[in-house]
């Protein structure tokens, strides 16, 4: 099977104000298959976001190597879809113009692509709304649509649903599942929500606390759509929570 993303021995440190090296990632290695849905779970502050930003090419590793489709991640060459943890829509652009942004930057704007993406995430009729006129869940849909509109090689999502209420989050899980079924995009999702990971992922990488390394990989081979009350589902969930508890006993 072809690998979409390869991460080899990646370490990353920051220098703190006292001049000490603070490692957030230490010798992380893993590979992501084409079309795979991979989740990272790990204690908060363990460096998950940094890892994702390195894969996106927003940051460079201190040592080690990352390749996306065989070459170093370079946003101007490889199409990357990134859904940020924070509110990251352009408040001055309406839904349509937010979604078309990536295409516009790449000089590849076609109304049809925007239209298709809007249909995919179920935002028809909201094209002219501004972000502040939308609910939290709808804003997330716009953010996902904006990432997908460029037809990315990989879709990276950094705790995208962390600030949503439980009900909306559950709806978004289902939506994301059906989007993945349709597009089969290679997806890496960072989350601290174990249920979310088990519901969506083909494989879950459990990370240790800082500096993060891969503690364990858990394959989720349950049939989809998954039932959160299924005993196998719960078994996986408890296994991962158990692994996390070894890292952070307070859980």
């Amino acid at each position, binding site marked *: 099977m072809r690998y979409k993303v390869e991460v080899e021995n990646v370490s990353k440190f920051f220098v703190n104000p006292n001049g000490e090296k603070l490692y957030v990632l230490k010798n992380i290695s893993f590979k992501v298959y084409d079309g795979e849905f991979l989740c990272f779970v790990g204690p908060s502050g363990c460096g998950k976001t940094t890892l994702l930003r390195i894969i*996106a090419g927003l940051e460079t590793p201190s040592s080690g190597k990352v390749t996306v489709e065989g070459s170093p991640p370079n946003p101007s060459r490889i199409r990357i879809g990134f859904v*940020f943890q924070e509110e990251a829509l*352009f408040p*001055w652009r309406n839904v349509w113009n937010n979604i078309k942004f*990536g295409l516009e930057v790449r000089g590849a704007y076609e109304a049809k692509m925007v239209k298709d993406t809007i249909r995919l995430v179920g935002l028809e009729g909201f094209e002219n709304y*501004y972000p502040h006129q939308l609910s939290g869940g709808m804003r997330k849909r716009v953010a996902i649509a904006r990432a997908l509109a460029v037809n990315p090689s990989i879709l990276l999502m950094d705790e995208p649903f962390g600030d949503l209420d439980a009900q909306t989050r559950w709806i978004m899980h289902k939506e994301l599942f059906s989007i993945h079924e349709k597009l089969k995009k290679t997806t890496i999702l960072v989350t601290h929500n174990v249920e979310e990971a088990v519901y969506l992922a083909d494989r879950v990488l459990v990370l240790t606390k800082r500096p993060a390394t891969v503690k364990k990989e858990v394959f989720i081979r349950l049939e989809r759509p998954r039932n959160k009350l299924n005993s196998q589902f719960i078994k996986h969930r408890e296994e991962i929570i158990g692994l996390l508890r070894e890292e952070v006993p307070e859980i």
Partner: protein
Amino acid sequence: MKFKRETYKSTLNNFASLVCFILLWELLSIVVSSPFFPGPLDVIKAFLVLLVEGDIEGISLLSHITASVSRVLLGFSLAVVTGIPLGLVMGLRRTVYGSVKSILEPLRFIPPIAWIPLAIILLTGYARYMLIIWLGAFFPVLLNTITGVQTTNPVLVDVAKVFGADKKTIIMKIVFSNALPEIFAGMRIGLGVGWMCIVAAEMIGGEMAGLGWLILKYGELLDVASMVVGMVLIGVIGLLMNEAFLRAEKNLFRWRKEVTL
């Protein structure tokens, strides 16, 4: 609905207080009863005379108004084309702003009127108007542009970077777009300040037209009513320009949750 009713009510209140003000003024002028304290009726009369006959040199009121407005708009435009690019640079490169702060900050506290003697010595004709009005309008535009640039949300820059945007695209589509409401507010304030400098500018401009010049001339002639006409016109035109700007802001920046009015 509610909003409309409130505006209606506020218009009504304003109309009422204006009427009260004019009545009080008239009353006061009757009590004072001095040729140097004209009432609103005298002012209206002077206004009509100026409108129909022009001033003592036969220059029409309209040409006074257009002279002043065009001077201010020109000086203001100069402030915009200098203030926005400099503000972008200084907002993006804090070291640049930091390095010239010791020049910039004292400079902006020197009132435009203090520049008058220097302007007389160094400049002639139209350049004098331009300098004085530019001095008034430039700093609000510059400082608001800097502030606007610095409020750029770094996540939005990351969004653009992930899509492979280059620096120019990021500056135009993210930084500038984000700063635009702030820049517009700076322009509105700058235009107001520039307009307020019109009398100072026309003290030294040398041309025999302009509202500021009209005020100064009738001041010398001790024709207070005509002088007040000039003052009121400056006030009203300033208000209209400000309102026009606010309207434009409200339309342009509908994406903002609130626009102050």
